[in-house]
């Protein structure tokens, strides 16, 4: 992950004049109740900026927005296509405690964002373990979390999210309803993300119930991380699969549905 100090510095100066759907960074900060919002017209990745600002001591709740990203990223080097104005490309910097809550944060964030996005989606938003958001079998949004640790201490979290507003050419993904404006979506999802980061402990019974209602993969056949039928998740966020040898709980790997049962692009973040 290349650090782009010089680019950040240069862009922060020019970013002062950038608008995001007509809103200045200052007015967005007020609207979203955040200490600071930084807007970029175009940059490689909002995650890189968040890490740079994290090193410089930026406050929790600092939000980086970009109209376009040239190197938006998903898990393990996958590219997240971030065309100009085609979606919300953001990173939220947070500084929570490095406790057991982190183990379920990826799921909790998706679980928080899904209902916030329902209002802007033609069909209900579904979840695919651990934290992909789907609409009508196609990927709508992804969340990638990068944490920085100094020894045993968590310094900061960079919560990156990509939400497709419209479907880019040539990609089988989902978008939000026509006419949706990005600022309204931000007003819905930012408080949801921040509440999820601040919530401590493992998943509650109520969170498990809400996850089950949106579970894209439940009762479907999968080939990874184990071969069997997806049974759901547990309080620690593990994926439960009923296999020929019994029930397994997986905390690593990707959920890949059997070909006859999937209409999706498979795993990505």
């Amino acid at each position, binding site marked *: 992950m290349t650090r782009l100090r010089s680019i950040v510095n240069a862009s922060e100066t020019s970013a002062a004049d950038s608008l995001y759907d007509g809103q200045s960074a200052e007015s967005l900060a007020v609207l979203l109740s955040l200490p600071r919002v930084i807007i970029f017209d175009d940059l490689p990745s909002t995650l890189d900026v968040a890490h740079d600002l994290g090193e410089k001591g930026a406050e929790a709740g600092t939000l980086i927005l970009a109209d376009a990203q040239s190197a938006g990223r998903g898990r393990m080097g996958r590219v997240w296509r971030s065309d100009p104005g085609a979606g919300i490309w953001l990173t939220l910097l947070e500084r929570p405690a490095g406790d057991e809550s982190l183990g379920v944060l990826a799921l909790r964030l998706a679980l928080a964002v899904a209902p916030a996005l329902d209002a802007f989606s033609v069909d209900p938003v579904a979840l695919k373990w*651990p934290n992909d958001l789907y609409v009508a079998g196609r990927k709508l949004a992804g969340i990638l*979390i990068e944490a920085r640790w100094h*020894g045993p201490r968590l310094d900061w979290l960079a919560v990156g999210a990509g939400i497709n507003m419209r479907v880019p050419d040539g990609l089988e993904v989902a978008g939000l309803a026509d006419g949706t404006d990005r600022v309204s979506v931000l007003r819905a999802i930012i408080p949801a993300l921040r509440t999820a980061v601040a919530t401590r402990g493992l998943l509650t019974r109520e969170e498990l119930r809400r996850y089950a209602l949106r579970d894209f993969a439940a009762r479907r056949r999968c080939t990874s991380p184990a071969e069997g039928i997806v049974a759901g998740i547990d309080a620690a966020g593990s994926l439960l699969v009923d296999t020929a040898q019994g029930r397994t709980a997986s905390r*690593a790997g990707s959920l890949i549905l059997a070909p006859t049962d999937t209409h999706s692009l498979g795993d990505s973040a």
Partner: protein
Amino acid sequence: MIDLRYVKKLIEMIDESTVDSIEISSDKGMKIRISKSPQQRGTVQVAAPLPVPAMLPSAVAGRATPGEGLPAVTEPETPGRAEASKTQLLEVKSPMVGTFYQSPEPGAKHYVAVGDRVSKGQILCIIEAMKIMNEIESEYAGVLREIAVQDAQPVEYGQVLFRIDPNG
């Protein structure tokens, strides 16, 4: 008189926090010290053989005398010299259970290699845990003497990931 509920609350707070120990003194002479040691939590410690015998940490080497197969130490050993010549390697341990990666993405250049000089705050590796990519910074400056885990292997809480020679 010590309020046991107060002590219990303190223990719970320490347990849930990243603080390792706390000591509180009152003006009436009461003193409470609570500490936790991650090593005592029954975690798995991997005793990987060290590839560079000359750089055995003192805890393993026991004495700083040259052993079989070790390069000869030319300086005469006085107690003071022996203390100074001991190469105390500092260990970077995993703060979580997860999967260890040496590079930011498959096929990319590794963050560090054995023999590299590393600085405090430099990213050494990534541990992926429940879809969070955890970048682990070095707590120490020095020369990297060992990478104790293979790429893409699972790691346990407290497992040694790297050994760094602060005097290298």
